């Protein structure tokens, strides 16, 4: 169970996240949609403390952090309970595909190297990149890099996986393979919070969709209801534009 209470983040005085409350059940797949600049990515980044929220409480996988008084230890604990998939992949440029996945297991979780390597190869198999284990990111296509990025996040075994527009930076030809992999992650009942502009994918994969605007969750509900019978005027306008 993931609990977010009163989460607030300001950039230079203006709130980008305005007292967000959000509960996510274990195994639930939640998709966040909304116009750009409304705090969707900031919400994800705050849950991973890549951006530091000023106020609020975040509880994930037994780790509970009060944003206003978060110590360095709290932050590291929260990051270990979550995993993050970046829009620009952000693979470690000095490490191979396999090493990218092993890194969290060996350095952070202190697992033995050979066990970590076995797990990394297993995950590369699931992502369909077994033959790229020893390739460096620079030698991989965008789609392949993002699949390794998802693999790296999978390896952590986090209570919550965060996906920050994972297909937005990709050439159209690579989007499908990344979405396929995310479907497979979702099938494993992994708790996921996904920011995306892929509406068909959202409808298909989400248990619940959140519509954000102006740093707040304006409307939320199951995809059929939210996408077919939106109540809020801003959501109606947004859906007309993205379709």
């Amino acid at each position, binding site marked *: 169970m993931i609990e977010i209470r009163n989460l607030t983040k300001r950039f230079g005085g203006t709130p980008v996240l305005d007292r967000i409350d959000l509960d996510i059940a274990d195994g639930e797949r939640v998709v966040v949609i909304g116009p750009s600049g409304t705090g969707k990515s900031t919400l994800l980044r705050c849950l991973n403390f890549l951006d530091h929220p000023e106020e609020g409480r975040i509880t994930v996988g037994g780790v509970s952090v009060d944003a206003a008084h978060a110590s360095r230890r709290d932050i590291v604990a929260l990051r270990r309970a979550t995993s993050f998939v970046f829009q620009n992949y*952000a693979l470690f440029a000095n490490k191979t595909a396999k090493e990218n996945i092993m890194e969290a297991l060996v*350095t952070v979780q202190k697992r033995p190297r050979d066990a970590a390597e076995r797990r990394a190869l297993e995950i590369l198999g699931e992502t369909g990149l077994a033959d790229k284990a020893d390739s460096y990111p620079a030698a991989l296509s965008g789609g392949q890099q993002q699949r390794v990025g998802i693999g790296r996040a999978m390896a*952590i075994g986090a209570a919550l996986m965060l996906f920050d527009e994972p297909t937005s930076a990709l050439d159209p030809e690579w989007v499908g393979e990344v979405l396929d992999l995310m479907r497979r992650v979702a099938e494993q009942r992994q708790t996921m919070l996904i920011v995306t502009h892929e509406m068909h994918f959202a409808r298909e994969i989400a248990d619940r969709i959140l519509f954000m605007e102006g740093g707040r969750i304006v409307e939320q509900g199951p995809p059929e209801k939210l996408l077919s019978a939106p109540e809020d005027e801003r959501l109606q306008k947004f859906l007309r534009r993205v379709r």
Partner: protein
Amino acid sequence: MRALDLDYMLGLVPVILGYVPLTLFMAVVAMACALVLASLLAVERVIRVPGLDWLVVLFISFFRGTPLLVQLFLFYYGLPQVLSFLTQINGVTAAIMGLTLHFSAYMAEAIRAAITGVDRSQWEAAQSIGMTQSQMMRRIVLPQAARIAAPTLVNYFIDMIKGTSLAFTLGVTEMMGATQKEASGSFLYFEAFLVVAILYWIIVETLNQGQKRLETYLNQAYAR
């Protein structure tokens, strides 16, 4: 104008070559120490440890702002007068210390710039998987910064090799000291210093070749 005494020059080569190991020893040890010290200074400059930052700034400013020769004299002839435990210090140790401190100040700036040059997303990715600050630095940021800084650092190493010649002013008989002694015996100053110049030159050129290989090695992960 008189002709060069080629026989003398050729005879001098093996004599000076005998002191190449000491020159390289000083340069390699000082370089290793300076790399460690410079990395620590650079990381401090990037993360800004409160209470330590001004000290690091002062250190870098002093050792970049004063001549190496002055620093060497200060260590070897000056400090032992104030700090009695340093009276036993020998010229080689003093030279290594001086070179280390002097070059670490320059290298810290180069490494700091390289760290800043590592893409922000690399830091965030390291943080996102739950690395501590020091794990992130050691495993992700510094290895990538090393690649950016490598050409500059090799240049400093070359400077350092040439800088070891100043150790002769502390009474160390290294390549330059040995040449000086030989020349004052034979009075063939031009020949002697020409030989030592050529030997330094050869060492530096060899290193330049090594640098190209090092860059290829460091770039292999980034090649498409």
